């Protein structure tokens, strides 16, 4: 992952959201979101389910389009439908349900985009793929199919798959929520090491420990708006907004 | 096309159509009864019972309906004489044959009910029979109904195969008219329309209610 092409270098890795709204049918999921993520920072989105966190991630990664407002990811204006596809392959996304391709083994999952969209040779893709799997500690399971891996292992392969195209920004959508508690650690430790390497990350999670130790900024979302944001110390230890206090009380109790 | 021909023969065709409907109704009842029993036996924990039920299913799902019909027809003729009612032979053959398919539908429905349900009923003091009747069976309804209706559609169409033992139902009656008049097109169109009128609404119902899986 040391070799970066000129094109990738040119893509900045900051994110700006301005007055973003989004509705699904009659439900207003995002009401008026302003959010900035600077290069190399880790921003953690917390909030109850249905608060709009995942929608924010899906808009930033190009899976959904905002109804109004401006979204700039790297230097791609995502609100411009003609230019939004440019972001594909430059950001990584890790899903709650892993979404590994069941018909490909671990290495096949990681190398698919390298072969098909970056047009690497088989040998080259294999080399990059193995390096990515090594990065998440899964190189010795490269021949296993997803159904032969535990949830934590699958998620690590999914992270390797996202890393393979050398993205400047990584999105994590409740990456540990589907995992058994004892498997959460192996995934969060990979995420922490990515953060330490200076990856720009936006993370939706319920792991308050991760938020506290790794986030540069914690953003609390409630009912489609950002209710409160600040350093982990501020938001998690000394929340100002009553909804944040309620939410944290419930999460920490559980 | 000869519309007059259709008009002249319509009473005859409609009468035969009624026979098709009767044969379908009786065979649907028969195959459902057989399927329910065999399907339940298939999930039995007594290995001999479940293996016998499985053999039944295997044999009929792996062989064609005409063979079953011919077996039943000649068997009945041997023991009861050739005066055997063709309607009965056809209904028995269709019930036995489609019963095997219906059994598989019930089996997969029964197996889809979590074992926890059975255990809970057991701890409440229900007998195995009661557990099946009041706890398991009602829960299979939503899984079982769409493929069951699908199977009934096949059965209705398959009543035409009673043709091979000479049963006069819609198909046979129609073919007799074709043989007599040498006008296949209008007759076949009429027959097709009659089958379609029954099967298509059922197909629509199945499509609306089936789970989105690849039909096997």
């Amino acid at each position, binding site marked *: 992952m040391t070799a970066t092409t000129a094109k990738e270098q040119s893509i900045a890795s900051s994110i700006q959201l301005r007055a973003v709204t989004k509705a699904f049918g009659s439900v207003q999921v995002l009401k008026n979101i302003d959010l900035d993520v600077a290069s190399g920072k880790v921003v953690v989105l917390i909030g109850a389910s249905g608060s709009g966190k995942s929608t924010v991630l899906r808009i930033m990664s190009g*899976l959904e389009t905002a109804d109004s407002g401006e979204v700039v990811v790297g230097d791609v204006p995502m609100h411009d439908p003609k230019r939004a596809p440019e972001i594909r*392959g430059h950001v990584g996304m890790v899903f709650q349900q892993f979404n590994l*391709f069941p018909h490909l083994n671990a290495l096949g999952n990681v190398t698919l985009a390298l072969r*098909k*969209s970056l047009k690497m040779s088989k040998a080259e893709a294999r080399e990059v793929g193995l390096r990515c799997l090594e990065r998440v500690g899964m190189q010795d399971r490269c021949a296993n199919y997803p159904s*032969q891996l535990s949830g934590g292992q699958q998620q690590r392969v999914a992270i390797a798959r996202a890393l393979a195209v050398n993205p400047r920004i990584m999105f994590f959508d409740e990456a540990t929520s589907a995992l058994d508690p004892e498997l959460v650690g192996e995934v969060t430790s990979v995420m922490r090491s990515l953060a330490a390497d200076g990856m720009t990350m936006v993370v939706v999670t319920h792991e308050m420990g991760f938020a506290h130790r790794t986030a540069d900024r914690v953003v609390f979302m409630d009912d489609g708006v950002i209710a409160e944001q600040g350093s982990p110390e501020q938001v998690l230890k000394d929340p100002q907004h009553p909804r944040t206090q309620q939410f944290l009380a419930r999460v920490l109790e559980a | 096309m000869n519309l007059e021909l259709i008009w002249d023969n319509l009473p005859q065709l409609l009468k035969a159509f009624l026979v098709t409907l009767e044969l379908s109704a009786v065979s649907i009842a028969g195959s459902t009864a057989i399927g329910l029993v065999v399907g339940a036996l298939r999930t039995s924990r007594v290995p001999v019972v479940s293996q016998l039920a499985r053999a039944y299913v295997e044999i009929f799902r792996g062989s064609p309906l005409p063979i079953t019909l011919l077996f039943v027809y000649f068997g009945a003729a041997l023991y009861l004489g050739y005066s055997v009612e063709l309607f009965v032979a056809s209904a028995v053959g269709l019930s036995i044959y489609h019963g095997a398919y219906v059994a598989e539908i019930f089996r997969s429905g029964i197996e889809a009910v979590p074992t926890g349900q059975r255990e809970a009923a057991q701890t409440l003091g229900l007998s195995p029979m009661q557990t099946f009747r009041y706890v398991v069976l009602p829960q299979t309804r939503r899984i079982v109904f769409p493929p069951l209706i699908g199977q009934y559609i096949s059965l209705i169409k398959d009543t035409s195969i009673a043709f091979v033992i000479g049963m006069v139902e819609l*198909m046979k009656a129609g073919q007799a008219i074709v043989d007599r008049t040498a006008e296949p097109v209008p007759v076949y169109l009429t027959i097709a329309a009659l*089958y379609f009128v029954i099967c298509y609404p059922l197909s629509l119902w199945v499509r609306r209610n089936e789970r989105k899986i*690849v039909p096997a």
Partner: protein
Amino acid sequence: MLYQWRSVLEYLPDFLRAMGLTLWITLLAFALALVCGLGAALARNSKNAVLRLGAGAYVEIVRNTPVLLQIFVVFFALPSFGLRMDAVTAGTVAIGVNVGGYLCEVFRAGISSVARAQREAAQVLGLSSRQAFISVIAPQALRNVYPATVNNLIQVLLGTSLLTAIAVPELTGVATVINARTLLFVQVFAIALVLYLVLSNALSFASGLLGRVLFKPPLEQVRPGLWPVRRARTITTTAEVAA
């Protein structure tokens, strides 16, 4: 009793020849069914409304009227339009076209059964929608439709027995002829039954082997319910992977 079996077994060469014809018609009709099914599935998803409607009508008509009627239409009615075929060809065409209607629905369900999340994952990775279809959707769809497709192959086999109604000398037809000659229906139809079971089990066994070679990770069961195999979630060890 033994003497009766012996007198029927004298006809074994005729049975086997008929079995060969049954298998041959089955394979030809299935090939035609694959073509019809795939064509209709593509047409039903096409942007052209005429194609869509035509394919829809084909599927509904074929699925909601008896196969036997369709066989008669091809054999007895098409000659009125100048399309004359011998009984074997007519039967093969009718059964192929019939099962094609069922396969069309299988293929359509197969494509839509691949989760939307898989498309999304491919999209984020930067694959074009064409690439995503070829590398991600199609392999999974094929895998999903394989068992149902094999089931339809078995349905083709069983359907060929109806060709006795248009005097094709396939297994059922030959059995009824031998029965008329010997009047030993138990023996005659028992042999026919066994030969059909041999054919259907051989076809599904062969398809199972093919499925194991074709798909990775290997398909474990092709006809769920008939050969109940416990779904084993094997975790391969590191040593096995290295080997």
